[in-house]
């Protein structure tokens, strides 16, 4: 669809541009042909309406002849020939309307004759301007498209990313268990595979039910629980009403990962992660709370976290999705709010 028809504002703007353009055309006819105001209005109006429509056609010719890949000679020739055709059509329409009104407007036709060359030239110019405008529109379109593509690529890269630290530590736990407890080693292999498979599968989709995200998070926690043993404790308190809400995938899992990395893992005796989910009317509110050591050594830079979750919330929900963090009494709390859909 033509971009000027996509929004009301764009169409109104195009219409507004044609008011002075049409007036100019009529004024030019009356000046060079010596027509009176009613005469030039009657003759110019049908022509201007035709031109109004024809000036939109470069959208298709411009698309067919991209600026970069078309030889300049061909570009110029095609647009010039089209412009001449358009000019001929508009001039014809002017002549026909003058002929039709000849009963009421005596010798209008003969007077109009002297105005024809200038009118033809003016239409040519307007059409060429419209060609330029359409190339600009196309450039805007393609830059918007490129932006969408790059954002999608970025999200895809994020989704595919499994924190290498987590992966290698899990493999190390499996390696330890193979001699001491082979059944547990196998169990952990399966949990880890479940997590990897599901995060790949869910990462390909643009939105998933909250219940699936929570299931993924649970698998993740099961793997970590084998690694951390008694140090990691988890308490779930989830409202079943959240389950059906659609959310972008891997929104919660990185937050749990942070709660372990910057929280439980920093404490000698570990701690409990509390996960609460509530649905209040049409908002889902999700809270993750964990204790941490305020005197822990600075975390080494690895993986990704809040920033990516924030930018994905912003991309999906604009200002309706929020991620807030609070610290009180050596407890860290992340509050995620998204519209329930």
């Amino acid at each position, binding site marked *: 669809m033509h971009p000027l028809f996509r929004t009301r504002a764009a169409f109104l703007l195009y219409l507004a541009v044609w008011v002075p353009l049409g007036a100019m055309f009529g004024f030019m006819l009356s000046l060079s042909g010596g027509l009176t105001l009613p005469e030039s209005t009657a003759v110019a109006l049908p022509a201007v309406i035709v031109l109004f429509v024809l000036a939109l056609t470069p959208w298709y010719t411009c698309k067919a002849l991209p600026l970069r890949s078309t030889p300049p000679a061909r570009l110029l020739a095609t647009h010039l020939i089209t412009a001449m055709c358009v000019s001929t059509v508009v001039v014809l329409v002017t002549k026909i309307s003058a002929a039709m009104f000849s009963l009421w407007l005596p010798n209008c036709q003969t007077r109009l004759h002297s105005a024809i060359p200038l009118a033809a030239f003016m239409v040519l110019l307007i059409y060429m301007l419209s060609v330029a405008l359409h190339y600009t529109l196309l450039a805007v379109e393609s830059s918007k498209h490129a932006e969408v593509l790059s954002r999608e690529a970025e999200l895809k890269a994020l989704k595919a990313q499994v924190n290498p630290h987590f992966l290698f*530590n899990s493999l190390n*736990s499996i390696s*330890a268990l193979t001699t001491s407890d082979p059944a547990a080693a196998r169990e952990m292999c399966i949990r880890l595979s479940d997590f990897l498979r599901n995060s790949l599968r869910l990462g390909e989709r643009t939105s998933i039910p909250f219940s699936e995200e929570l299931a993924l998070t649970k698998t993740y926690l099961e793997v970590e629980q084998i690694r951390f043993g008694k140090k990691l404790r988890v308490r779930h308190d989830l409202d079943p009403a959240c389950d059906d809400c659609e959310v972008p995938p891997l929104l919660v899992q990185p937050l749990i990962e942070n709660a372990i990395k910057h929280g439980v*893992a920093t*404490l000698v005796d570990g701690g409990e992660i509390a996960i609460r989910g509530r649905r209040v009317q049409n908002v889902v509110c999700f809270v993750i709370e964990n204790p941490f050591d305020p005197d822990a050594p*600075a975390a*080494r830079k*690895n993986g990704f976290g809040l920033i990516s979750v924030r930018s994905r919330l912003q991309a999906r929900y604009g200002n309706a999705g929020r991620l807030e963090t609070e610290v009180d009494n050596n407890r860290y709390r992340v509050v995620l709010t998204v519209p329930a859909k």
Partner: protein
Amino acid sequence: MQTIRALIVDDEDLARQILREYLAQERDIEIVGECTNGFDAVKAAIELKPHLLFLDVQMPKLDGFEVLDLIGSEIAVVFVTAYDQYAMKAFDAAAVDYLLKPFELSRFRAALDRARRRLQENARTPSADELRRAAAAPGQFLQRIVVRDNARVHIIPVDQLDYVEAEDDYVGLHSGGKKYLKQQTISSLEASLDPAIFVRVHRSFLINLNKLGKIEPYTKDTKLAVLSDGRQVPVSRAGYMRLRELVDAK
């Protein structure tokens, strides 16, 4: 054959278990202890006098670099880490032995053999300071300084550091009216700190720009920096120029 006393430091049970299992096959190694956090590791290193440390990088309380910083360079160290791109580069550059989890027996034995050789040659482990600087992510500076006096460990966050004074082989760290001594040169400490905040105002003095009150003239060529708590630090001509540059840039 002399027995090598080894200490295992890792916060994960299963990670320690693997090291125990591999070490059990080595007849010249005795495991003298296992620690699950940085504080315990420093304490055990002092009390149990191990020859060799298997040291995890990420742990509660103190990280592996801080532990190395506090126990000095006489103990041979094999770092054990899962994945840390910057640390791995630093270990390679400094020829420090390290194991990447999960590791196989042959890789473990190779690391152990090198550690044995180093112990025989009495080779020193590279300084923690140098290693940590090489392992820092770009734009990441020292966040806190660890100091040990006997068995006590002090942690000084760098934003609470007022100024640093060079004293022979030591630096005096002044923070909140207290002074801590640490064996390190002022230049190597300066290199680990954020240059936008810490300025070498004098050959022997480094100040925290955020604690600077005012600058007063002293002699013809030198000035005095008066810190917000009133303490005075001499400023040399070159130091004053560095200070001006930073203040003007802000």
